[in-house]
């Protein structure tokens, strides 16, 4: 077991290295010159001096490993402000990350609360009109991009009926308004996920309901509710768990647009502006943090399998 954990942590290091290297290379292809953006265009001497000072005139690998070394020591690089100076990218990430995590958590909670009951219900009523309505609705909702849904929700819920605010409020400024300000963006992020999870759970659940142990449970006189929630749901949720891990990437992608639409100062907004402003070091660190988070969540889910499914536990014990 521990060997497995160590192996997975090893993969975390490799993945983070590869992702950060790839993104570093990609960033170098973004057109434009960050130094010119900082100091203007008139003083060629100063442009050259600053480029040298920032190390942008050095070899690609030297620049990359310099950043990596700093990152591993907790130095996430600088956000540059032109002739006036810079500030640590760490501060920006420290500020943005909790907001995005909160938004994603909200979205996940909504997803689970809605998708699981609907998925179970759909499987239980497979082939009925209810199942068809739920399945068709799920297909329809998957087809709506989260940013489009965000704008639609904004127009209807925030503008027309004014039930919820159209922009972000900090928790410290007003707790209630803060929660309210997170609802629409969380729904915008969650709806696509709900549909996917529901469809997935439905198909797994239908298979599970045909298993012998379910027939046995029913034969013992257990109620349908107990069979569904106590016996069928757990084995049916393993795929769901895998997809949840993989979907973290989609969720992060969704937050970029949704955060911009709802003016939420999270990682999405941070990435968006860092790219447009060519803040090389910040982009690097943002990507690395997200990559680490992504891999870590998936490792955690891997480990969770062993808890949820005894077959996986015994297979890993034998490995």
């Amino acid at each position, binding site marked *: 077991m521990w060997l497995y954990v160590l192996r997975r942590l090893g993969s975390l290091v490799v993945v983070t290295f590869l992702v950060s290297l790839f993104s570093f290379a990609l960033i170098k292809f973004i057109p434009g010159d960050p130094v010119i953006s900082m100091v*203007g265009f008139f003083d060629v001497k100063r442009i050259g001096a600053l480029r040298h000072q920032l190390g942008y005139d050095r070899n690609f690998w030297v620049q990359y490993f310099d950043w990596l070394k700093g990152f591993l020591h907790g130095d996430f690089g600088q956000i540059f*402000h032109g002739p006036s100076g810079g500030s640590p990218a760490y501060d920006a990430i420290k*500020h943005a990350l909790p907001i995005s995590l909160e938004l994603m958590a909200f979205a996940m909670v909504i997803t689970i609360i809605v998708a699981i009951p609907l998925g179970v219900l759909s499987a239980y009523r497979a082939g009925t009109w209810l199942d068809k309505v739920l399945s068709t609705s799920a297909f329809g909702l998957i087809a709506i991009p989260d940013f489009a849904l965000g704008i639609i929700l904004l127009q209807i819920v925030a503008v027309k009926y004014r039930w919820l605010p159209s*922009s972000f409020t900090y928790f410290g400024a007003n707790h209630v308004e803060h929660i309210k300000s997170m609802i629409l963006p969380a729904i915008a992020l969650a709806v696509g996920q709900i549909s996917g999870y529901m469809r997935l759970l439905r198909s797994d659940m239908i298979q599970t309901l045909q298993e012998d142990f379910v027939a046995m449970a029913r034969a013992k006189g257990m109620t349908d509710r107990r069979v569904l929630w106590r016996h069928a749901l757990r084995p049916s949720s393993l795929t769901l768990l895998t997809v949840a891990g993989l979907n973290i990437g989609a969720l992060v992608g969704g937050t970029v647009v949704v955060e911009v639409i709802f003016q939420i100062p999270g990682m999405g*907004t941070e990435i968006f502006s860092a790219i447009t*402003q060519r803040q090389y070091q910040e982009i690097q660190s943002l990507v690395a943090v997200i990559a680490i988070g992504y891999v870590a969540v998936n490792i955690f889910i891997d480990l969770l399998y062993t808890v949820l499914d005894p077959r996986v536990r015994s297979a890993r014990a034998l490995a």
Partner: protein
Amino acid sequence: MTRYRAHVGRQLPKAVAAIVTFGLVAAACGGGSGTATSTNNGPATTQGASGQVDESSLTPVSGGSATMALEADTTGGWCLVEAQLAAAGIQVARAIYDTLMVPDDKGGYQGSLATSVTPNADFKTWTIKLRSGIKFHDGTALDATVVKNNLDAYRGAYTKKKANGDNLRNPLLFIFVFSNIKDVQAAGTDTVVVNMNKPWSTFPSHLYQYGRLGIMAQAQLDSPDHCFDKMIGTGPFMFNGDWTPNNHLTVVKNPNYWRKDKNGKQLPYLDKLTFKTVLETSSLIAGMRSGSLDLAVTDNTLAIKPFQDDAKSNKLKILATDKDTEINYTILNEKTEPFNNINARKAFAYAFNRDQYNVERQNGLLQKASGPFAPGVLGYLPASETKLPDYNLAMAKTYVKKYETETGQKLKFQYGAPNDSDSQKSALVVKGFMQAAGMDVSVRQADQSQYINDAISGNFQAQGWRNHPGFDPDDQYVWWHCDAPAPATQPSTFPAANACDNLVNFSKFNDAVINKNLDDGRTTTDPTARKTAYENINKEFAAQLWELWGYYALWSVPSSLQMHGIANLALPTATSVNAVGEKPFEGLSSGVDPAGLWKSK
């Protein structure tokens, strides 16, 4: 909480993005003399100010807070001498800082931190008298020394160094703008004397600089690492450290602000003002309609249209104007082919269907420009007088043929546009116009900073642009004037040897008529002579087509029905800090005076 980032400049998320606002553009503003000069120019406007509400019967209420949307994140902070402030950044600066002079509604300039700015007989020495009793937000006094230091820093003559020996302050365009200043002297505590190399009759107007020339406290000016984010001014609001880039910046009431309203009531009215960055058009519209935003400053035609519709149904108010505004246009590189040839320039001018472009890309909201000066600006002339060529496909084809015959080459060029999708769409429309006339055009994409760099380095043939805001036309001296000898008469092909030696004359034209009239315009205060000079420049541009003028930018301030005091607070006078002086400048391209904003219950 304060966080920061550098910014390339203003983000342009819409069609107008093809026409870049250079963060530094428009830093050169000219105008009358130290005391108010009135130059009401030509027909007021083609579109003019609309939506200004008569609030004379209302009694302003003090207190409360408001949220103002700005359509772009600000640049790398507000170390004003080196900041690259676009419209959004200027709006914030106007809350925190005051300038020495401010423009009025008649084309003149009134004292703000200064009570008077007076010249000697030959306009080579100017004496600035400061208003007494004004304090910065940190409690230090506004005096001649800090003003001198600010002016020196703006012009690149501030001698203080960082610990590593580098210059403490590194200004950008202001070095060009103030290159005529020989030295600045503090004479006593309330008098600053500015000596010029050459006569400069319009110097007072340059003490406003489109709202960018605020006076910073010594502590901010001398901060090696935090000049950009520890803003200390004398303005109506104080920065309290709450700045989250890409999201918001909050300022709170300066309880000791020196200005008062006409009844002697302390300004500003609001206790708190939050500037909210709203990048998305849909978010801006939703924010205004849902009430989470109280007002906005925008030139986004995609948003202005629905706001105008809302105003018609009395859901909100909108003040909109293209008076004293910037020009959207195409810059052409006259140093190289094909636009060193006037036939190519004429072909472009006749091929560009401005009416169709306006409908397709600007919601039909913009008015066609007749020259570089917007209505209200000295030198403005209607198209009937400038004779600026307009769309005529047959003429365009004729000039394409002429060019090809004369040069033996196909009329072929690259049209540059920023690489956002809206700008690219706009560029494709332009490309279609040119192709219809027989030109061979390709669209060249560039990142915004590269785009500007291309203009400065001359690495372009034609590209969309925006510049030359209202105020005084001496504003434009820094952009158009050349010291290198110009051809006595312009040949059909502009000789590269005569290219302009001015780094920020991007097109590199060098026109004797323009040079002379620019000099004339800044060495006299005679209104008639100045009017003639700038009208001559206007006509010369239309004749030579150095730049191809497109549209007057339309600026607007949509606001909730509860917001008041938008752009109607009168200016102070030399003897009174009360708002009993001239009416404020009508243009909105540098935002509104936040001191006068108030919110009804």
